[in-house]
């Protein structure tokens, strides 16, 4: 009798295990969201029905696709042109559900055929004939330590009490705060050069002095990563013109989620993206000199987050770039770019930057522009 009971129990357990593994195996196969997956197929049916209507109704709707929403559920993705004149209205008109399927909105640049870039174009690293435009390679003349030289971007021009200053980041102009590997620290009056050391094989003799550092010591005690250098007469275009952007507006504008923005920087040149987050609290680690040790970790609040997929918008060397609204003429400044990762970029809100700079220079700081 015991043997029989044991055999029945074994059979029962084995059957349950077979059923379990069979279900698991088949569910694993079903989970791959290929075009034949029932859930994907359902969304495709809706997509085929509504795409012509959506695209005909709004010229800023660029296309559709099947994707996943934040919960991992299949959804219809609607691509909207970030440069569209009525972006907000376009987004609002798109329903959250169509035909019983969830709808995601993806704001994107217009789609282009990916032909190779023709030769020529604008260099953001070459030494310019003065007066230089901004959005170019530059940095502290003595930013050489521990076997490395460092640099960033001379991002923009500001004005305080009729004096013009190149604006970049604290960590581009004045972050060398220990004698460390080079025996010096950044001081008032130190030359700021164009291009930066990283683009002249670490040899300052191949660069030109364009401005003189005015230390603001914004970090670690303030909520902005900013530094300025007073322009040397004749060396910088007094219009504040930025490479591939031109003259900007003297006005600024507040960031908003979905805002189309662009920047001109040393490494990635002219790039565009969109604001994806606001009011960010983030933690950034700073070194005490070029390739030096850790100096401090700074927690910023109220920061602007920008999409930076595969570092397409902002990369190392672009620090100090000015982020402006992505419009064709007289764009207004939105933020000062300074940090990021391979997925996102971070900017200080521009008004907070200008307020801080103005307080340090005892005047009202404004962008140089129209």
């Amino acid at each position: 009798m015991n043997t029989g009971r044991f055999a029945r129990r074994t059979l029962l357990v084995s059957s349950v295990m077979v059923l379990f593994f069979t279900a698991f195996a088949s569910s694993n196969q079903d989970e791959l969201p290929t075009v034949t997956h029932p859930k994907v197929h359902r969304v495709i049916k809706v997509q085929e029905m509504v795409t012509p209507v959506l695209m005909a109704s709004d010229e800023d709707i660029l296309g559709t696709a099947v994707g996943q929403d934040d919960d991992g559920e299949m959804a219809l993705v609607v691509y909207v042109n970030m440069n569209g004149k009525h972006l907000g209205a376009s987004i609002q008109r798109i329903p959250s559900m169509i035909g019983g399927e969830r709808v995601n909105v993806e704001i994107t640049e217009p789609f282009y055929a990916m032909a190779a870039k023709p030769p020529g174009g604008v260099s953001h690293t070459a030494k310019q004939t003065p007066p230089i435009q901004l959005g170019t390679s530059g940095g502290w003349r003595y930013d050489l330590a521990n076997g490395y030289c460092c640099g960033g971007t001379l991002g923009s021009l500001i004005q305080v009490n009729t004096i013009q200053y190149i604006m970049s980041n604290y960590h581009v102009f004045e972050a060398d705060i220990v004698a460390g590997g080079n025996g010096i620290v950044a001081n008032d009056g130190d030359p700021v050069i164009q291009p930066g050391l990283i683009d002249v094989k670490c040899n300052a003799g191949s660069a030109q002095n364009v401005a003189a550092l005015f230390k603001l010591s914004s970090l670690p005690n303030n909520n902005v990563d900013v530094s300025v250098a007073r322009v040397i007469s004749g060396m910088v275009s007094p219009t504040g013109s930025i490479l591939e952007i031109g003259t900007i507006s003297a006005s600024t504008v507040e960031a908003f989620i979905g805002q189309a923005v662009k920047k001109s920087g040393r490494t990635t040149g002219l790039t565009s993206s969109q604001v994806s987050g606001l009011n960010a609290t983030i933690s950034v680690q700073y070194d005490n000199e070029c390739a030096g040790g850790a100096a401090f970790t700074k927690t910023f609040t109220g920061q602007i987050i920008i999409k930076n997929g595969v570092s397409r918008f902002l990369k190392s060397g672009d620090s100090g770039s000015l982020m402006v609204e992505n419009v064709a003429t007289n764009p207004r400044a939105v933020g000062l770019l300074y940090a990021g990762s391979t997925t996102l970029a971070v900017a200080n809100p521009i008004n907070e930057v200008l307020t801080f700079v103005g307080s340090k220079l005892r005047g009202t700081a404004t962008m140089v522009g129209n």
Partner: protein
Amino acid sequence: MLISRMLYLAIVSFACLCCVHRPEQAMPKKDINEVLKENDKQLMSIPGVVGVYVGMLKDGKTLCLKVMVEKKTPGLERRIPKQLEGYKVLIEESGPIRPMRNPSG
């Protein structure tokens, strides 16, 4: 008797209709920036969290809170709440956030 009963039914039906059709008085949500301010320190104190911000769900319309982490782990997914005061909380693997200057050897 019949009239009373009918009257009674009419009153009850009307009351029920009122109940059914009275719009729900939803509690207004707290401003999302306030929710972030009240929770950012605690979230930032979780090892692996590098930032928090106000973002948007993929529907392009609904605000949410996003928590940036160096690397998404099951531990972090358990520790970070899925919602705060009615706002969805999403985890975003950002990697470490660094200053964007360029050292060159």
